[in-house]
């Protein structure tokens, strides 16, 4: 090809049609292809339970509708806790934990980003805190709090229910994660915002509250939600202390009836809990976006 060729007169391509394999990915055909492949994959997964040598027993031990119902309602008269009622414990644990995590996470993040020399010792503590509790497996924190605090024999502190200790462990661990999420969110706000707010004579605290945090929170909602879903699931870890929540109830049911359907019930209940949360957050994000784009 010579350089003398002028810009728009190269040879046209012989065909603009997609090659055969790629044709599966363009046009209306792509829809059919994706629907078909999804059905095949799902069907294949279900088929495993029927084709596998142990398929029948797994279906009986895990997906037995009758047993699932019995696990859900439990048999309190005979000391078999209900998985359904157990979930209420998970629910209050994560509600309380999330509220506290928001507060502590924000306080820790605020401390870590401050530059005032007065706050230096606090800054050091906050940094140590996030380093330590992001590094220790949460299960170990649950053990240490759950067995350690009662061991102190310190009146009020040592006389709480197991679920409360579980809650404390979750707050301690997740505050460290959420603090880092907040910190990243705060740093994502352009420095000009800080300069503009301070040049209006707003104090540092007012600047954070009125200008920086409202913007940071918007960017932080998706990762924050991620951590919260994770927290909701981790309420199940409290079962290792013996606190009777959904997972522990399923454990009890399993040992009493030699049937694991309770685990599937607990899983479904956890799923029902987390999905509305994701939907709600998506709704918040969409609303905020529309409002700003429409300039209403």
């Amino acid at each position, binding site marked *: 090809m010579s350089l003398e060729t002028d810009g728009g007169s190269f040879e046209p391509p012989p065909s603009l049609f997609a090659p055969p394999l790629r044709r599966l990915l363009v046009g209306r055909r792509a829809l059919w292809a994706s629907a078909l492949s999804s059905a095949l994959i799902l069907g294949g997964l279900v088929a495993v339970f029927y084709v596998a040598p142990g398929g029948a027993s797994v279906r009986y031990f895990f997906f037995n509708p009758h047993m699932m119902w019995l696990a859900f309602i439990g048999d309190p008269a005979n000391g078999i806790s209900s998985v359904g009622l157990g979930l209420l414990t998970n629910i209050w644990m994560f509600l309380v934990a999330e509220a506290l995590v928001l507060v502590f996470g924000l306080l820790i993040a605020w401390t870590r980003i401050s530059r005032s020399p007065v706050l230096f010792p606090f800054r050091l503590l906050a940094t140590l805190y996030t380093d330590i509790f992001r590094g220790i497996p949460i299960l170990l924190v649950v053990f240490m709090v759950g067995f350690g605090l009662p061991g102190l024999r310190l009146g009020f502190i040592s006389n709480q229910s197991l679920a409360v200790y579980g809650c404390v462990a979750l707050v301690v661990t997740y505050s460290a994660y959420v603090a880092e999420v907040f910190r990243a969110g705060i740093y994502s706000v352009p420095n*000009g915002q800080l*300069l*503009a707010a301070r*040049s*209006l*004579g*707003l*104090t540092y605290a007012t600047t954070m509250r009125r200008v920086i945090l409202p913007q940071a929170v918007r960017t932080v909602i998706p990762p924050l939600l991620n951590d919260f879903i994770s927290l909701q699931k981790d309420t199940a870890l409290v079962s290792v202390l013996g606190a009777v929540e959904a997972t522990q109830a399923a454990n009890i049911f399993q040992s009493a009836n030699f049937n694991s359907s309770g685990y599937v019930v607990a899983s479904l209940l956890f799923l029902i809990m987390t999905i509305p949360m994701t939907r709600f957050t998506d709704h918040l994000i969409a609303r905020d976006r529309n409002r700003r784009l429409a*300039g*209403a």
Partner: protein
Amino acid sequence: MEKVLELDSVVKRFGETVVLRGVSLTLERHEVVCLIGASGSGKSTLLRCANLLETIDGGTISLFGQSLLDERIDPDLVRRHIGMVFQSFNLFPHLSVLENILVGPVHALKRRRSEVRDEALSLLERIGLRERADDFPDRLSGGQQQRVAIVRSLAMQPSLLLLDEVTSALDPTLVGEVLDLLRDLARHGTTMLIATHEMNFARDVAHQVAYLDNGVLVEQGTPEQVFTNPQHESTRAFLERVR
């Protein structure tokens, strides 16, 4: 004449780099001073030092005769008297135009919202954007945003305005509306220190023009003196380049 802002031999370093090498400048009430000079000559830094967004490494700064280096000084109180407008507007994107204007008076000056609201609306009226009061900044053109940013500073009723190349980020067709607003302010006696690349504008409105070169205030005088009869070779070279 009453001296509003006085900078005396101000020195500012960023690490090894010396950005301001002993700059002295005085701003009197109702005076407009234009700071000219190449990018990186220290104009922005000088403005930021003046409202204590940057600490200085030498010299003194005083506002109405009171030294701002005194350790009893509260920088937040100082900044409430000094408005600042930025090249990149820096409006608060999560607040409506009206809320952008209210945030200073309400949360820094603790004034009543209802009372400030009327003032804010009449300021918006003055720049012809009253009907955009409830819009969010990203719905406005750059020129409109910058005019709102100027009004946001004015709502604090500052003793002086610092303007940092406020038209440099604007589409050329939008520069005029912002400069017209500044001309209007100048006519009404607003004290302003303006860093700018708009030489014709500087010639029009400035009472004093100061040429900053590499952190040194090389030359200062009336627009007439500086633009038509510059005394220094570097001033002449600079004006030659921007013309």
